[in-house]
């Protein structure tokens, strides 16, 4: 599959290098989005490329002067890249403080990464179903819009915003289609490759990503896939960072396959479409309040992550769930026990893996995943 190898190739280069080159070639502007749920459409409507920032894969050196070792890898890593000047290609950053660590990173990045000229932190309500939530969220969105318009001296028109929402929605639909295919035929690609596809989409113009997805979808011939004998697994979590590809490979090496996911670099990113009506800002607010995957960083008793994952298992007839906690991600720590209880009550095998930026060996993880896959097989 031609398109699939294109995505793989994109992933072989550190993202900041790739984006820097893209910028030189196109002469366009880039804004880094840091923290969950930055309304990218608003940036897109300004004809600026919004990209999701990651901790990258290199050792954290300067970041260690600003963060204790017991902060999550994404926070230490993004800070590290910013302090090293590797994010200097950014024309700005919009930071949504989905957790306290990200809040803290705002001042640190401002103090130490002088070449990023526009750094805009935003606060969104964490309690989603309150009388005041929507009003307050709308105010925050308006503030962000005003700030972007002021800095770039350009209006974000209603029409432009509608159009951006449409493009992002199309992306969401195409990704959903791809996921549906994978649910039926998990063999269509490796889990690592699925991650490459989503990573690419998080960091390239959505119009181009949409085209690539269409190409890919037409290239995938599902009739060549017979019934998959491997143990079907669902992955959940890995907040604010990509999964170490080694772990995705391990799952497949020991006889498992990823049939669906609730990963940050996964369905969590694209599942919530925007129901665009007359007022695009309101639509963006609703998207956050009514997000499909329940989020560990928000509170909403009507949308329970445990139940959501149990449903996902049933829908894809998976054998078990592997929960991936980004080590030191407190938000996820608070919600994890409830996912565990839900799995236990539904009789679904569940495994917890904590991932760190610094990994010396994947052997212990391999042993655990292997045992987990064997356990499901034995059932």
């Amino acid at each position, binding site marked *: 599959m031609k398109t699939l190898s294109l995505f793989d190739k994109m992933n072989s280069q550190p993202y900041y290098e790739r984006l820097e080159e893209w910028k030189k070639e196109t002469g366009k502007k880039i804004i880094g989005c840091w923290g969950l749920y930055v309304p990218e459409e608003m940036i897109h409507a300004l004809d600026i490329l919004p990209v999701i920032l990651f901790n990258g894969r290199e050792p954290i050196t300067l970041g260690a002067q600003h963060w204790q070792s017991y902060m999550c890898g994404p926070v230490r890593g993004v800070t590290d890249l910013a302090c090293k000047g590797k994010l200097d290609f950014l024309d700005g950053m919009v930071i949504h403080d989905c*957790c306290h660590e990200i809040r803290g990173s705002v001042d640190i990045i401002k103090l130490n990464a002088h070449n990023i000229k526009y750094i805009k932190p935003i606060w969104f309500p964490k*309690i989603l179903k309150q009388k005041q939530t929507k009003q307050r969220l709308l105010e925050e969105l308006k503030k962000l819009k005003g700030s972007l318009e002021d800095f770039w001296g350009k209006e974000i028109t209603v029409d432009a915003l509608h159009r951006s929402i449409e493009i992002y929605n199309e992306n969401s639909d195409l990704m959903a289609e791809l996921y549906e295919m994978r649910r039926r035929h998990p063999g269509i690609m490796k889990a690592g490759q699925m991650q490459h596809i989503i990573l690419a989409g998080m960091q390239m113009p959505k119009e181009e990503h949409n085209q690539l997805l269409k190409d890919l979808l037409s290239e995938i011939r599902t009739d060549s896939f017979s019934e998959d004998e491997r143990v079907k697994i669902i992955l959940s979590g890995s907040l604010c960072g990509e999964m170490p590809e080694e772990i995705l490979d391990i799952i497949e090496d020991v006889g498992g396959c990823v049939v669906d996911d609730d990963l940050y670099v996964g369905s969590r990113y694209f599942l919530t479409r925007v129901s665009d009506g007359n007022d695009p800002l309101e639509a963006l607010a609703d998207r956050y309040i009514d997000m499909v995957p329940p989020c560990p960083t928000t509170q909403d008793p009507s949308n329970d992550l445990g139940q959501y994952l149990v449903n996902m298992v049933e829908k894809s007839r998976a054998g078990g769930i592997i929960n991936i906690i980004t080590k030191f991600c407190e938000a996820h720590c608070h919600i994890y026990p409830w996912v565990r209880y839900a799995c236990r009550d539904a009789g679904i095998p569940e495994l917890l893996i904590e991932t760190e930026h610094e990994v010396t060996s994947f052997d212990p993880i391999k042993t655990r995943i292997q045992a987990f896959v064997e356990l499901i097989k034995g059932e």
Partner: protein
Amino acid sequence: MEEQRKRYNRLKCTAQISGMMDKFYEDIRRAPSEGRKVCWCVGASPFEILAAQDVASFHTENQAARISAGQEHMYYIDKAEKEGWPTDTCSYTRINVGSALYIVEGQWREDHERYRVPKPDFIWAGNTCPAMVQWADSLRRIFDVPMFGVDCPFIYDDDDETYMKTVEYTRSQLQDFITFIEENTGRPYNWDALNNIVFGRMRRIAEIRAEIDELCKRKPAIMSAFDQMIAMGPYNQLRNQELVEFYEEMLLEIKDRVKNGIVALPDEKYRLMWRGNFPWYAVGKMSRWMAPQDICLATSGYGFGGVGPHARGLFPPDGFGTDDDPLTFIAWNVTTRGYTRTLDFKMREEVHEYVDGYEIDGAILHSPRSCRPWSMQEYDMAKLIEKRYGIPVAVIEADHTDPRYYNEASVDLKLQALIEIIKERKG
């Protein structure tokens, strides 16, 4: 040998605190049998609002700190961890959730009666640290009772307009909390009682606090930061007349000290400030290490007295004039916490006042492993303090309640190094 016996002169009134707190919790334990509702409060909590409606309420953080001070934390931490709460969850949460799990299972240890609290009828969360609403949400599920949360925005734009808007937003949520309480207690809200507490007791305590604040700046220090932190305990939860009486007595004792020339440490040579919450299990060790070397821990942002503008922020002397609306005052109180403020704000309104106002020679920044609101930005803050004020800073990594993360050797080393630098500079 003479030196070894040097100790801090503790404020006498603080000896009552443990008894006061025992009594406070006994009262809470009695509530169900007296037909009073019980509310567990997580995070920034408006105890005024609850006390006025005669709801027995306590701070879950405080219950955890009490258990930790009694060295019984591991019994609860183990329970929570066994049930799935990862070790990186806030240690206060793990202790409190552990206790909640024992309660629903009906497995309370008889010899832990003093830590026992009744099942909640409802839960409060003041979400200044995002962990708080999640913690409260776990309690809601464990006990299957209603929960009310107030979302507290992080104030990035440090201007008055943003600030006042935030206060308004908090206030409107508090208004809904009143309705929630009415529903859950089954009677109309007692506004008279609230006005009495806010404009009577809390106003008086604010005045006392401002006065103590000023006196705390004296050199040598009139009371140590250890006493300041311990004295904060009752204020954090009690709202009764006894609370006012206690602080009146504290003020008298401090004034008496001034008159008779009594200080915290007679040979005080070096003055340190503490920032962050406190590893309660290490209070004794630390004070026994400092006093013999004539080191006075003179101020802290975590105590009653000696907290400068932080205290003024919490109790704006003219803030009481906010149209005499008690909810605005409480919203102000809840919103002012440093948890939701920028580094710039903290440097300006907190650090500057301590270092400057208290003539500090060095600073200790506590970086609690499982509490991000306190540990974040501390390295940068340390650098800024060193640069702006030319005083050395030690960042010590420990935890507020999980002693497994308190590395005594490393803490000693860092503190020793801090003192060496100060001695070298001061002679």
